[in-house]
């Protein structure tokens, strides 16, 4: 690829010197620093004459490199960038005239190191194949078991399961009382279905090409990439996913047998929505309903299910209180989909950020957050949920930095990362405060014979 005039025009401002590299007669490369000037319109870099034996050969193809870092004492360095040009040298009136016809460059202020690294994954695989062929044994990248499990399952996202299940248990505790053992089994079962979903998602994102197409993965988006990196095989994670689903379903069936078969319909709905989120033939996330599926699964289905296990009946209150939680977890997915949208579009995943404009996504976020907290306030004031749940409004300010980051850094995946973390905190804090609202009501009810209306 020939260097753009704009790239050449910036060289003098961004680099202090050039290094000319060429091959000497004895076959060794030689590299020597030189001053330079650029005539971007002519596409020429004029290099200052070098003295002595280290003379670049006129008429031959050379490599000229411009490199920059800024030392950071006690840390290392930053502001890494380089431009590497190839072309022929000719003697000129004021030095050696270099006519570049090929370029390779990177500037960490223009392309993050994470993205630069991601673009190297195919080369890493080629190299591993070569080393395997040279050594006669399969050479694969490794990660310590604990880290690999954490990465493959995306374990920290389990908060999305714990919040709605604990909320359902808390509502049951308020209305009917609860059993610790049933609570524990519900948490384990729900967690297994969630982990099965996470891992299945990676199976189908690998086979659909979504992982390979995504060069902007973050801590919160882009999947686990364990297959894409070669850390585990597709078969490994398919078995892992099936294992989680098997345990989750077994616990669900056991709970239904023990507490009432009406639980089964909700469990079946949850497991199917979870599996067909990315699995064919439904591939719900590809059809543009991924956010709704997540809202349902990690909102009403989990909360109502956890409530039923304790209370052996369905009720309106756990359904109502789960709605804002469902909206907020869908917003976690919604924001995390923003950096994934080019890769999702390539893989045919019609997520909301793929389908809608930036303005619609940013305004949609604000509207959905406002709706969540308006519902929390309405339900508490109306007495449809316990009144202390109104304390969950205290979490609302966490949405502000997320909104601002979406508005100001929509196209910058790595700048969005803190906002993604904050958005997860928004869901978690709201859920914990709702649960705490029920705990307050329960304590007040236990401690007082006639608690005031705002504590019930």
């Amino acid at each position, binding site marked *: 690829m020939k260097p753009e005039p704009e790239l050449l025009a910036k060289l003098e401002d961004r680099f202090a010197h050039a290094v000319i*590299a060429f091959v000497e007669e004895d076959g*060794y490369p030689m590299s*020597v620093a030189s001053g330079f000037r650029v005539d971007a319109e002519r596409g020429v870099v004029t290099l200052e004459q070098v*003295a002595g034996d280290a003379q670049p050969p006129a008429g031959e193809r050379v*490599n000229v490199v411009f490199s920059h870092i800024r030392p950071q004492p006690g840390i290392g360095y930053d502001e890494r960038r380089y431009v590497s040009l*190839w072309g022929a040298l000719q003697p000129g009136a004021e030095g050696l005239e270099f006519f570049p016809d090929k370029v390779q460059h990177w500037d960490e202020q223009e392309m993050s190191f994470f993205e630069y690294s991601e673009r190297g994954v195919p*080369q890493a695989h080629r190299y591993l194949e070569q*080393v395997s062929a040279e050594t006669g044994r399969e050479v694969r990248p490794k990660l310590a078991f604990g880290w690999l499990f*954490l990465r493959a399952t995306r374990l920290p996202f389990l908060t999305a399961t714990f919040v709605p299940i604990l909320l359902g248990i808390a509502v049951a505790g308020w209305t009917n009382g609860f059993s610790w053992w049933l609570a524990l089994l519900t948490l384990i079962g729900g967690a297994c279905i969630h982990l099965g979903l996470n891992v299945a998602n990676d199976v189908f994102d690998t086979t659909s090409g979504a992982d390979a197409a995504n060069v902007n993965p973050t801590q919160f988006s882009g999947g686990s990439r364990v297959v894409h990196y070669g850390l585990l095989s597709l078969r490994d994670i398919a078995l892992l996913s099936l294992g989680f689903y098997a345990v989750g379903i077994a616990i669900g069936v056991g709970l239904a047998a023990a507490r009432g078969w009406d639980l089964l319909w909700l469990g079946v709905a949850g497991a199917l929505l979870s599996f067909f989120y990315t699995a064919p033939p439904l591939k719900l996330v590809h059809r543009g309903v991924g956010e709704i599926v997540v809202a349902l699964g990690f909102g009403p289905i989990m909360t109502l299910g956890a409530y039923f296990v304790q209370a052996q009946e369905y009720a309106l209150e756990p359904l109502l209180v789960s709605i804002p939680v469902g909206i907020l977890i869908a917003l976690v997915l919604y924001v995390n989909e923003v950096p994934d949208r080019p890769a999702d579009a390539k893989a045919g995943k019609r997520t909301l950020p793929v389908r809608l404009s930036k303005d619609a996504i940013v305004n949609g976020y604000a509207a959905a957050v406002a709706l969540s907290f308006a519902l929390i306030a309405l339900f508490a004031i109306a007495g449809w949920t316990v009144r202390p749940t109104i304390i969950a409004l205290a979490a609302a300010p966490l949405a502000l930095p997320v909104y601002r980051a979406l508005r100001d850094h929509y196209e910058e995946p790595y700048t969005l990362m803190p906002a993604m973390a904050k958005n997860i905190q928004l869901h978690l804090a709201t859920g914990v405060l709702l649960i705490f609202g029920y705990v307050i009501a329960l304590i007040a009810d236990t401690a007082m014979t006639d608690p005031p209306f705002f504590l019930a």
Partner: protein
Amino acid sequence: MGVLPEQIEALLETALVAELTVIDSGGCPVTHPLIPLYDGEVIYLTSSILFSKKLEHIKQNPKVSLSISDPVAVNTERFSRATIQGDATVDDSDLHEGWERVLPLWRKKEPAIDFFLGKRVALPLFFERAVIELRPRKAFLWEEGRTDRPPQVFHVEPALA
């Protein structure tokens, strides 16, 4: 005292970046900015498998040069520029942990490497690395970094085992 002239060793000790030039399969030079590490005999450079073209090139043609050219990246009282020619080998026998033998030298130049290593789970392929071992055979020194003047040239004697 190592195999290289003292002034060049001083540059290698502190340089945060150097330019490694290798030769590709078409015989064309290709230069990569890398951190040089030096133990008095061998210059070590490490490369992630993500950026491993250079390793392929070295395996095909071990002749390389390493240039220390950036006054900003070197912390010495007297700045000079140097180029070291030599023969390189690639140690990729243990990509996962083998490179950690040069970690003490790396840590001296980039203390933050321990922080990044702690985040290995985030960048697993970046820390699958090969070690390039460069044994110098000839070195060039430009006093005060003046490449418009002829360099001093040193032929390097291999260290006694």
